[in-house]
């Protein structure tokens, strides 16, 4: 028995040594000889966007023959957790996702983990040549990380984003419907669709974020009707980006927007049982021809373009034609920034430049129907009369007229979980109570920040 004892002790000793050696080997093996590696952690796990990223990487590697790009795509939540853990350990990728506002950018800036991209933007002309000034503000923070929407630039997007009204051209033609130019016209179209047995607007309220998109477009129309488009644009960025405590959800137009969307729900403009439908399923139902319109984002464009019917998109209309274009929900796709721990910051900045400007990637956008960050959009990558063409036109318009709206779930850290919208639509609370809840959520955040 003692021989076995000795044998097993030897075994234990050997295992311990093996473990120690492999740990040392793993640690030591990290240093490379030869080509330089640039690590990129992104959230383009969707096939279409990832294809564009691959084209960007291919061009970058062509232009930098001694550089190899090591890229990892994950979904937003997983990428955030991985990035946070890595940053706390003093490690992480060279190029990382820096999602706008308090989701990631604010905490990262305050912890001093991101590089100020201002000098690179000046060198490469990013702010001059891409997007519009109000859009760039959404990737800025003051250096102390206390104020969002101004100060240093910390992120650069690969794609643009917008929310518009997709519509089924075939159904519209069949019912002799014209593209609505005002909200009353939109409601008339909805009534005609309903009478023909077709669900007017594809929408599902099982999740919180789609509510803020459809409601924000309605809000833009009702508010601009009272105070004009420019002031509405300012109100929205004051609330969502700056967090100005002088602004309030009790300001004119907000209650009307809540009443309007509630009216749409009560009039059955949405699917039966829509409170239990997720937005992906609402999209699938629209693509299957079960609804006339679909008020959602550019990220669904390739799905809609793949439908059996001719699709189109129009901007959400104002209450009255004279008001002109109202703010349309939109912005930039999840921006990328540079890790303060990176030893190749200049190289990382060159990668970001390629991300913004790569022509091969740009051409691909026309095949995958992803919005480019460039404005005005290059219409030659799309065919007239298609939904992607309509989307590019709306994108250019929004930027040119300074009407890029806001994602209201950015307003406070808990707004993405705020159930008031779902409670409003399912009839649990009144529009007045909705306004009250939104203001409570807003005010408790903005007053605690100062």
């Amino acid at each position, binding site marked *: *028995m*003692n*021989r076995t*004892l*000795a044998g097993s*002790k*030897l075994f*234990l*000793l050997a295992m311990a040594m093996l473990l120690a050696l492999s740990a040392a080997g793993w640690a030591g093996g990290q240093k490379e000889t030869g080509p330089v590696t640039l690590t990129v952690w992104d959230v383009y796990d969707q096939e279409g966007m990832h294809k564009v990223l691959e084209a960007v990487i291919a061009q970058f590697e062509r232009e930098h023959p001694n550089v190899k790009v090591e890229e990892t795509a994950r979904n937003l*939540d997983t990428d*955030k*957790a991985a990035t*946070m853990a890595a*940053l*706390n350990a003093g490690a992480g990728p060279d190029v990382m996702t820096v999602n706008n506002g*308090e*989701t990631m950018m*604010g*905490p*990262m800036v*305050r*912890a*001093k*983990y991101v590089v100020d991209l201002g000098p690179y933007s000046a060198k490469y002309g990013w702010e001059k040549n891409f997007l519009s000034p109000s859009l760039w503000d959404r990737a800025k923070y003051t250096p102390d990380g206390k104020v969002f929407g101004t100060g240093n630039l910390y992120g650069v997007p690969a794609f643009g984003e917008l929310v518009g009204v997709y519509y089924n051209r075939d159904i519209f033609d069949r019912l002799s419907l014209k593209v609505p130019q005002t909200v009353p016209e939109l409601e008339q179209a909805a009534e005609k669709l309903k009478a023909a047995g077709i669900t007017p607007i594809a929408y599902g*309220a*099982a*999740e*919180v974020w789609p509510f803020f998109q459809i409601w924000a477009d309605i809000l833009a129309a009702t508010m601009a009707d009272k105070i004009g488009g420019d002031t509405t644009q300012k109100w929205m960025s004051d609330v969502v980006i700056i967090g100005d405590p002088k602004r309030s959800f009790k300001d004119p137009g907000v209650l009307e927007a809540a009443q309007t969307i509630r009216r749409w729900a009560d009039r059955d403009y949405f*699917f*039966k*049982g*829509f*409170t*239990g*439908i*997720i937005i992906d*399923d*609402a999209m699938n*139902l629209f693509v299957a021809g079960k609804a006339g319109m679909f008020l959602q984002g550019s990220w669904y464009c390739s799905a809609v373009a793949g439908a059996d019917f001719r699709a189109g998109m129009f901007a959400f209309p104002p209450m009255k034609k004279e008001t002109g274009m109202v703010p349309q929900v939109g912005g930039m796709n999840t921006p990328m920034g540079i890790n303060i721990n990176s030893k190749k910051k200049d190289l990382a900045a060159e990668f970001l430049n390629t991300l913004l400007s790569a022509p091969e990637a740009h051409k691909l956008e026309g095949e995958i129907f992803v919005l480019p960050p460039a404005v005005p959009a290059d219409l030659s990558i799309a065919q007239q009369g298609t939904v992607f063409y309509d989307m590019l036109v709306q994108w250019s318009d929004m930027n040119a007229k300074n009407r890029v709206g806001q994602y209201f779930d950015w307003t406070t*850290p*808990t707004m*993405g*979980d705020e*159930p008031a919208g*779902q*409670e409003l639509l*399912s009839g*649990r609370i009144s529009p007045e109570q909705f306004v009250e809840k939104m203001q409570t959520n807003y005010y408790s955040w903005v007053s605690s920040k100062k």
Partner: protein
Amino acid sequence: MNNGSGTKDHRRTYSPLNDIGGALTPYLYVAPTVLVILVFLIYPMASVFWYSLTRWSGLGLKEFIGFGNYATMLADPIFWTSFKTNITYVLFFSLLPTVVGLLLASVVGRSRIPGERYFRAILLTPQVIASVAMGVIFRWIFSPGFGVLDGFFNIVGLEGWQKPWLGDSTLAPIAVGTIGTWLWLGFVVIVFVAGIQKIDPALYDAGNLDGASGWQELVFITLPQLRAELVVVLVVTLIRAFGSGVFGIVAAVTDGRYNTMPLALYAYRVAFVHNRMGYGSAVTVFLIVLILLLSGLTFRFGQRGRR
């Protein structure tokens, strides 16, 4: 130790390697397990407790604030709503399967059923499905657009019963609860049937002689004999109702919307989405203590009455 050779000092006849450790030998053998427990259990738990005493976004520096997070927690209405929702889940994941499972087991447990093995496999099938997959499947089942449930009501002419199951604050927690009942009922039945089959038939014969009814048999003979099984079933289902099982299911089926948010998911959101790692840790510590308490009480209950 008797090795038959008659020598008293064993050490001289064996390898010098035997000298390694000596009196420490037993500790060397448990060392790997202890190490794993320390690294993967004790250290994380201690860390979470430490984080719960700080204000921390998850990045950068932590600010020590004592028990401030716990005060916030007690004053947080969403915390209390989640707690209440979790109690609903305890009802559906733990208590309901236990009671129904016991009744079912008492009916079928005493006799030998043909094809018992296959029934066992079928009853345990829900256990092998990943909780996220389960959540997605049930989201489809409950979907108003093309769900199986509403579709069924349509076919049998009960259109009035069609509801947005997951889109209503009263119905959604119940709908999610039924997923838990479906998940655990089979497991509970199997554990209780195994327990019943261990019971000495002589006890039931004695009961028959005394004229005991079926109900009296269940309460006075079956139930006391199933104390150990009851403890197992309660502890396992209680932990799942608060922890890992319910988290995966809810995250996939409703993401906590319409009043379905359990505490574990709330802790995750607060920590990783709202960037309040300190507060999220406090909720987590509360959960850990609660589960330990409930498990401990259940075990104590199991010990009582043991002769």
